[in-house]
């Protein structure tokens, strides 16, 4: 049970920096308030805390109405966020109506609690027992009615956004949140709607009923976790992609070192001017994509510098060797560049230009930077041979 709660708190805390950055934005605030209300709701529903609240305040089962009031508030913020985002012409009116409904539900919970759960022993099991007093029944039916209408509203909006989204993570996230809402609706309608009416005023509960209700409760927690996870999926996907890109860039940066070192004597004047560079860029493993970018530019500067010093005869010989080795065209070019780079560097340092090389290092204008990095990586791999 605690795992789901921790998960929701993690998503809430992960979103905190963004919420703070965008604190002027009503939408961002509503989104984060929905998350934090949901996290509070799930935390209060933890049995040890549930019992403790009753004991500290001297009001048995006080956590029961508070938990669901927090749930209603979370739901309202979520509705407000989604409707304000959907921005239909009557969004403000719709949000006001939903605020009224949420306020009425919270008022109903507060009114019925003194005539229901607070009259029973202070135990978390009360939330799953058949209603004993009219306050109990009213409270549960209020929750069931709110759930059906409000969470249904949220599930529908999430599904709509899922269909409109072009990005796969957002599509999946919204679908997950929608499915989570449906799970919560199913459980609360079954337990607090159908079961409450059928078992009203019964003073016993069969083992089968108890087991079924416990399983249904697991469904609620899973549903809430799915909602939180669904809202977090797009950002999480980006984080994972960023980590993968960091690993790829670091690997490439290191693999290009040999080529960069070989060309360094000719591009010494073009090496990265470290002055006034923020200290953070000089820390290892930080700003890796920037370092990779500089390395590639410096290598390309080096290739341009040695261009007039390349030995055409040697390059033709190397090209023949590459063909003899059965290398494909692109690898053959890289092989030739790698094999001849030292000779050209030496020519540059001695100031002896040779005739212009027959093998052109320049590639077509259409090729993108990624292709250039890949090409240099191939050159670097042959340099290490």
């Amino acid at each position: 049970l605690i795992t789901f709660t921790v998960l929701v708190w993690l998503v809430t805390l992960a979103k905190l920096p963004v919420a703070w950055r965008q604190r002027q934005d009503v939408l961002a605030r509503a989104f984060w308030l929905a998350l934090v209300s949901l996290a509070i709701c799930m935390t209060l529903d933890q049995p040890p805390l549930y019992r403790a609240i009753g004991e500290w305040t001297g009001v048995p089962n006080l956590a029961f109405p508070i938990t669901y009031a927090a749930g209603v508030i979370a739901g309202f913020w979520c509705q407000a966020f989604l409707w304000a985002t959907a921005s239909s012409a009557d969004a403000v009116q719709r949000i006001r109506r939903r605020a009224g409904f949420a306020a009425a539900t919270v008022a109903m919970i507060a009114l019925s609690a003194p005539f229901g759960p607070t009259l029973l022993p202070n135990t978390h099991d009360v939330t799953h027992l058949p209603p004993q007093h009219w306050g109990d029944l009213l409270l549960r039916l209020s929750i069931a009615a709110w759930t059906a209408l409000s969470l249904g509203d949220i599930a529908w909006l999430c599904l709509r956004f899922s269909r409109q989204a072009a990005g796969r993570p957002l599509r999946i996230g919204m679908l997950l949140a929608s499915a989570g809402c449906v799970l919560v609706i199913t459980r609360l309608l079954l337990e607090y709607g159908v079961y409450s009416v059928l078992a009203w005023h019964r003073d016993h509960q069969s083992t089968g009923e108890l087991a079924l209700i416990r399983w249904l409760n697991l469904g609620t927690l899973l549903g809430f976790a799915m909602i939180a996870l669904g809202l977090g999926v797009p950002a999480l996907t980006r984080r994972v992609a960023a980590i993968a890109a960091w690993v790829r860039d670091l690997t490439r940066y290191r693999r290009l070192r040999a080529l960069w070192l070989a060309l360094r004597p000719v591009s010494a004047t073009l090496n990265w001017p470290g002055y006034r560079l923020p200290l953070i860029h000089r820390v290892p493993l930080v700003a890796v994509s920037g370092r990779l970018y500089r390395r590639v530019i410096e290598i390309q500067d080096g290739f341009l510098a040695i261009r007039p010093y390349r030995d055409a005869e040697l390059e033709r010989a190397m090209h023949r060797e590459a063909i003899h080795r059965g290398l494909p065209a692109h690898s053959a070019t890289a092989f030739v560049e790698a094999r001849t780079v030292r000779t050209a560097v030496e020519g540059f340092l001695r100031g002896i230009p040779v005739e212009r090389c027959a093998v052109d290092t320049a590639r077509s204008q259409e090729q993108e930077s990624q292709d250039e990095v890949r090409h240099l990586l191939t050159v670097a791999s042959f340099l290490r041979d």
Partner: protein
Amino acid sequence: VLRTLALSAADSAVQSLTSRIEADRGRPLRLIPVAQEGLPCGMWVSLEDADLVYYSAVASPGHQRHIICHELAHLLLDHPGADVTRNAARLLFTGVDPRTVTAMLSRSSYDTAEEREAELLATLILQGRRTADRPTERDARVRRLTSAMGDGPETD
């Protein structure tokens, strides 16, 4: 300078910088590829009525973008440029009246503070620019949703 540029990831850096500089300076800016050996890989030449940016025609596309951005950085940073003798201009460029050349800078070394600053700015402009790896949301409502959830380009 970088903050004031506020280039979005979707922009083409060279195109948007060129248009901005042309508008700011109120005169045309021409980008000219040069295949001639022995010249610096990039040069900015200020004429009386226009700016010319020469870049190596044999460099790779990514390298060309960097060279051009380096020269444009000089203009963004309001670098004065070095005086150039008309004889030197005549030797270097064809198709340019040497009498109209007022100043020039070339990307060949970092001996001067201007060159270091321009290289730094070009690097900062281009190093973080990657083609968007996510599909652009067509629906404005979905864009608002992703932005408010902290997943939009505006927030991250």
